[in-house]
């Protein structure tokens, strides 16, 4: 068991390599009365093609299967997981993203009983042809719901503009057709590959001790076979697919997503690159920037405007999203501001303002046990050393680092705009 401290925050956590193969993080929070636990696998919607180190052949599976599996894991032969949590009072949930699937609960009481449920149902799959068929109907409805969600549609249409082959371009839940191809056998193939404890992580924060967590893991988890997983994606060209997409819904206020596809030189980004890019975006389009304030005053954007360094295994992009009566003007403004910043350089004041603001905001996040626990999972799956690294990186990053980064990113040639508006 390793203890890691942050002097800035006054917080510490424990990192444990459990003998089952599972990586565990625990952050006890003094004076807290609730606890948040999350159990995740590094397996998301992009993992459609993989090979296990103990097998010869590659497996290719239908789009949306990771999300489907997430739904199905809640079921068992007798009581489903929700019915079991109903006896402990914990409030439970799960989510699937591009590169991970996570199961979580939060509670103020009966923590150990709830942790036992979490560890148990995630490690005990139960699927039959009949239960798979029933779920196809339910997920089909969920997929349809997203087709009415303007924000969701604009993001995914943008990713389809930027990416030709990489599976980040496909919907996380798949399509009604793709999930129709899912069988219980395929679910077990994916489960056996990715729900191996060596590919998973458990993080707990709040009113908890590391001993409580380890004791429950000792009781519930068996040693997992040591297999490695190879991921393979078709080569993604540097070029984008197209630079504009429009989709129509019954609505008045248009929603947009504008983004730059970045060159992904290595599959995963280190913490320094993430910190640099985050500071850069704050300088370019944060609420103290010229760009943000001008667009706001000109009536082009409102408080829904956001920016994001969007990165995961084999993909890297910079996204700007929001609502606007004139999305084209917004994308033009952003392009001009990027060109201007590249030309003029970054002032010391811009740099310090952005850094100070991000530093404070990151500290504020540590109030929330949900943020802390989710952050452990993100950092572990990204291969970062510690969740505290990003705070350190904000302290040590220099203006020159940011300028260097600026010159490598946001090339107009690789940008696209996606708009969702009324019919």
């Amino acid at each position, binding site marked *: 068991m390793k203890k890691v401290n942050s002097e800035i925050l006054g917080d510490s956590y424990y990192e444990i390599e459990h003998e089952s193969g599972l990586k565990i993080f625990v952050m006890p929070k003094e004076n807290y009365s*609730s606890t948040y636990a999350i159990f995740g696998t590094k397996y998301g919607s992009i993992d459609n093609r993989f090979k296990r180190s103990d097998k010869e052949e590659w497996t290719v599976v239908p789009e949306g299967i990771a999300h489907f599996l997430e739904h199905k894991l809640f079921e068992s032969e007798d009581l489903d997981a929700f019915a079991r949590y109903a006896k402990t009072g914990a409030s439970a949930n799960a989510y699937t993203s591009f590169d991970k699937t996570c199961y979580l609960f939060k509670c103020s009481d009966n923590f150990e009983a709830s942790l036992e449920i979490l560890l148990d149902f995630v490690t005990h799959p139960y699927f039959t042809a009949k239960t798979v068929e029933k779920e196809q109907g339910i997920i089909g*409805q969920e997929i349809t719901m997203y087709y009415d969600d303007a924000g969701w549609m604009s993001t995914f249409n943008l990713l389809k503009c930027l990416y030709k082959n990489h599976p980040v371009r496909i919907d996380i839940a798949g399509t009604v057709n793709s999930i129709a191809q899912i069988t219980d056998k395929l679910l077990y193939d994916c489960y056996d590959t990715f729900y191996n404890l060596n590919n998973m992580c458990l993080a707990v924060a709040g009113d908890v001790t590391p001993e409580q967590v380890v004791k429950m893991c000792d009781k519930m988890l068996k040693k997992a076979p040591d297999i490695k997983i190879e991921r393979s994606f078709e080569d993604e060209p540097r070029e984008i697919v197209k630079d504009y997409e429009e989709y129509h819904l019954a609505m008045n*206020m248009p929603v947009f997503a504008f983004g730059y596809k970045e060159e992904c030189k290595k599959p995963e980004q280190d913490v320094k690159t993430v910190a640099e890019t985050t500071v850069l975006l704050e300088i370019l389009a944060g609420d103290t920037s010229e760009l943000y304030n001008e667009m706001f005053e000109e009536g082009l954007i409102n408080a829904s405007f956001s920016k994001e360094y969007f990165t995961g295994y084999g993909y890297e992009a910079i996204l700007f999203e929001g609502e606007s009566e004139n999305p084209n003007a917004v994308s033009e403004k952003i392009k001009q501001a990027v060109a201007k910043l590249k030309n003029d350089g970054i002032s010391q004041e811009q740099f310090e303002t952005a850094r*100070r603001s991000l530093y404070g*905001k990151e500290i*504020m996040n540590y109030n929330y046990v949900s943020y802390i626990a989710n952050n452990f999972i993100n950092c572990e799956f990204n291969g970062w050393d510690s969740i505290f690294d990003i705070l350190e990186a904000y302290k040590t990053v220099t203006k020159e680092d940011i300028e260097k980064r600026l010159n490598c990113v946001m090339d107009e040639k690789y940008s696209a705009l996606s708009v969702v508006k009324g019919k």
Partner: protein
Amino acid sequence: MNYCENKIADGISLISVDAKHFKTTEIAINLAVPLGKETASVNALVINMLSRKNKEYPSMAVLNKKLAYLYGAELSANINKFGDCQVLSIGASCVDDRFSLDGESISFECIKLLASLILNPKLDENGNFYQEDIDAEKRLLIEQIEAENNEKRTYVLRQAERLMFENEIYSTNKFGDIENIKNITAKQCIEAYHKIVETAKISIVVVGSTDTDKTVSYISEEFAKIDRKYTSLNETEFVPCAEKVKEKMERIDVNQGKLVLGFRVNLKPEDKLTPAMRLFCDIFGGGPYSKLFTNVREKMSLCYYCAAGYTKLKSCIMIQCGCNEENMDKAVGEILNQLEAIKSGDFEEEFNSSKISVKDMFLTFNDAPSLLEGWYSNQITQSTLKTPEETVSEIEAVTKEQIIQCAKLLSLDTVYKLSSPKEDK
């Protein structure tokens, strides 16, 4: 966690929750005024405008720079509807003073800033808001309403409320309405501003490790400058029962249908039975153990989501469903069946699950400073404050007989359906 309430002036109180273990201080200034068809738009516009700039920080860019300097302090204006009251708020969240790199008190700076945004607006030489600021805010407020309409789940709920409460003040949208907003004048803005600060019930909530005495004396001094003409808020109009069921089908181009059921609840907000009603609502359509989730969604697959929400102050329960048109009538029937099941006492397991889960949920509020701030801010229209722990004890005392009693107080008022045009089918 304990709070301390200081009466500062007529209708103004400061509620502070002393919590030293958080990383932040959360502050909100809340102003409650009567909800009115004529005033909702201009009130909403004014509070948004106040949050953008003031005399000292005369542009958004300057104000944002100040916030960034305060280590990324976050500022937001909020508009809510609690019964027949419109609650206008400006809130801030900032890092605790111990993280300051130069020894400055960040939280006190934020309290000063918030008070100043409310009390020292940016006005022109005639004492009016600048026309350009009003125009900019009109655009933003209209966009806020449009954005809500973009979300079909919120949209259909608003439409159902509009139909259900059509002859009551409560049908007023908390942001006002687009036509009204377009016609707002500078004169209306400044009049609304004075009326808000002079007559609103004001509660200032601070959660964190600030020096309460210093805050109280500062706030008292600042707010004493207002010439207060406080009158207490009116009670929300109470309609105990539905007369007949109103039904409407709206057809717009959507991929998934939506269904809303509005029930009147024959129970006044101050009644002793309200904790039981809260629990009843959770048993009916709250958690994944609820009647609606396990039966209408899971067993019968009639809806993708099906959830009930109790609005104590308006004495109503609204049920929202994601539902295809062909299942809508069946879903309505099944929702009513589940209500009958509760009336007949069939909810043993759900009762226990709900009690333990609702209790657990309330206690997690104590660990999230922003939720704790919201907890106290949202009680602005109530005469006495409750802690999350007190609410938990009330929930614990609820009996099964009371749940049955609650179920019998519901009457179906409105069924609102949203689906795509028929020719598309």
